[in-house]
């Protein structure tokens, strides 16, 4: 508070303070109030279905959660989901960015088609894939498998997590492509030309010029995707509801079950705190990267 007063002395500081006040105050409330409440609840015995139960719980909620095998399976699923989607979207996005950077007939339209899935709402993507693509009897994939004489796969019962990974990767590959395509456009053509003159093949150009140029954009893509992928929810909600068993329950879905199905506020909040800590580990690196960029 003292600091603001110091800047408030200058006219510009005072004006900028009052202009920023609404945005800063609202965001501060939006962050601190729920965050404080989550922390507080996580140390309380608090279940909406058991009104009589209350009081300080200490670390009970955390203990309950950390010794629950469901948490560890949810953590594992979260890691698998985040990891695989990252690999698919970053590798695929980089290769596609190079491809769509080449000149060919109708490039603009092809680009627009390829980035479209990113603008489709998650519930639509998930249901279109679940019903029309992956349905074991009437889906397009089953029809294709039939065409080649292969047995149709019952995606959501035999490969539930893989199915979710495919759907989420389909949504986020266009995001990676969009960002990397923008980044690749600032690549210096002369540099590529010069390397070519010196006898570098396309593969050498890719690894020694394109990839280093994209390094920062790729790290931005990885971090932003991580923050969103850590808490994928709607795709699981409308397709598998976390099942079969716990096969597709990630951390976000586990917290949702505890919060709005079991109404166990204490445990759900402890789960929330764990999710916040995980997201923050990633966030620190992202904020640093952006900060560096702000200086230049």
């Amino acid at each position, binding site marked *: 508070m003292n600091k603001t007063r110091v800047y408030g002395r*200058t006219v510009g500081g005072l004006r900028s303070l009052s202009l920023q006040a609404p945005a800063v105050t609202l965001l501060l409330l939006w962050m601190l109030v729920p965050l404080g409440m989550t922390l507080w609840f996580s140390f309380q015995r608090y279940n909406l279905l058991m009104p009589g139960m209350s009081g300080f719980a200490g670390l009970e909620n955390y203990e309950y959660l950390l010794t629950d095998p469901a948490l560890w399976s949810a953590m594992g699923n979260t890691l698998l989901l985040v990891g695989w989607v990252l690999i698919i979207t970053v590798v695929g996005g980089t290769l596609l960015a190079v491809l769509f950077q080449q000149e060919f007939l109708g490039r603009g339209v092809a680009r627009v088609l390829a980035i*479209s899935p990113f603008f489709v709402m998650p519930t639509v993507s998930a*249901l279109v894939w679940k019903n029309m693509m992956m349905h074991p009897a009437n889906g397009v994939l089953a029809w294709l498998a039939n065409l080649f004489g292969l047995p149709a796969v019952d995606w959501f019962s035999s490969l539930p997590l893989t199915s979710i990974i495919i759907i989420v990767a389909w949504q986020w590959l266009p995001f990676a492509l969009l960002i990397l395509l923008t980044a690749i456009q600032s690549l210096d053509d002369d540099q590529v030309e010069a390397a070519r003159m010196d006898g570098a093949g396309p593969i050498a150009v890719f690894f020694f010029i394109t990839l280093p140029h994209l390094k920062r954009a790729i790290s931005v893509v990885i971090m932003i995707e991580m*923050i969103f992928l850590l808490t994928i*929810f709607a795709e699981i*909600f409308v397709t598998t509801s976390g099942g079969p068993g716990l096969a597709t329950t990630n951390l976000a879905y586990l917290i949702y079950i505890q919060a709005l199905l079991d109404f166990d506020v204490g445990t759900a909040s402890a789960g929330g705190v764990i999710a916040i800590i995980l997201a923050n580990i990633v966030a620190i690196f992202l904020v640093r990267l952006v900060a560096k960029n702000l200086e230049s």
Partner: protein
Amino acid sequence: MTTPRYKRFLLAVLAWSIAFVIFFPILWMALTGFKTEAAAIADPSLFFSPTFESYVAVHARADYLKFALNSVVVAFGSTLFALLIAIPSAYSMAFLPTPRTKGTLLWMLSTKMLPPVGVLMPIYLLFRDAGLLDTRTGLVIVYTLMNLPIVVWMLYTFFKDLPRDILEAGRMDGASTFQEVRHLLLPLTLPGIASTGLLAVILSWNEAFWSLNLTSSDAAPLTAYIASFSSPEGLFWAKLSAASTMAIAPILVFGWLTQKQMVRGLTFGAVK
């Protein structure tokens, strides 16, 4: 550099095939919306007699319009509020920077990193006690705050690109801050403001964590309406497709229009 013609041709074929495969689920959905329910679950075929019966059926259930209206009100309402709150803030950060500006910007960015599921419980309880559950007002509040950091950031990068001399000239002529913003800044950066607004609309329109958890029937937007097709009684593919196509079409067009500027907002200016 001259690439042989056949190579260029192969390149085009490869790129187009990949683009087609990626786009295929959307295309297939759009086509299925024009089929009868029987044709929708029959073997995939591009040859069918198109019918509007699914579109008619979806519209006949008057509630489709209710959900669509909820989406429109919530997405545009929250965007309007976010812009109103963000414009003064971004203006002061771009034109009256103090040593704190950078810190404030980064802090705003960090609020975006809070996973929604981490604060699900408090928001749910606060909304319940305030009577905001299943209301459009509630969703507008959440989406305004959710998008505020991105909106401030994007506006900040657009404002900063504006030559400062222009605003200074206005000030010399005796324009007040309000006049300066109203008559110089806003008209000059209108394209930037428009694409910022479109991004906020897209993000709110497609948001599916809060809409699924905070609404049930009255205020449910299209994301939640489409989710209702996941129950077994809702396995009508043609109707699902028709409803989905209508739900995503406007946003798809917005996305195509603003893809370039969107990169700025989505990466907080780290990739231009």
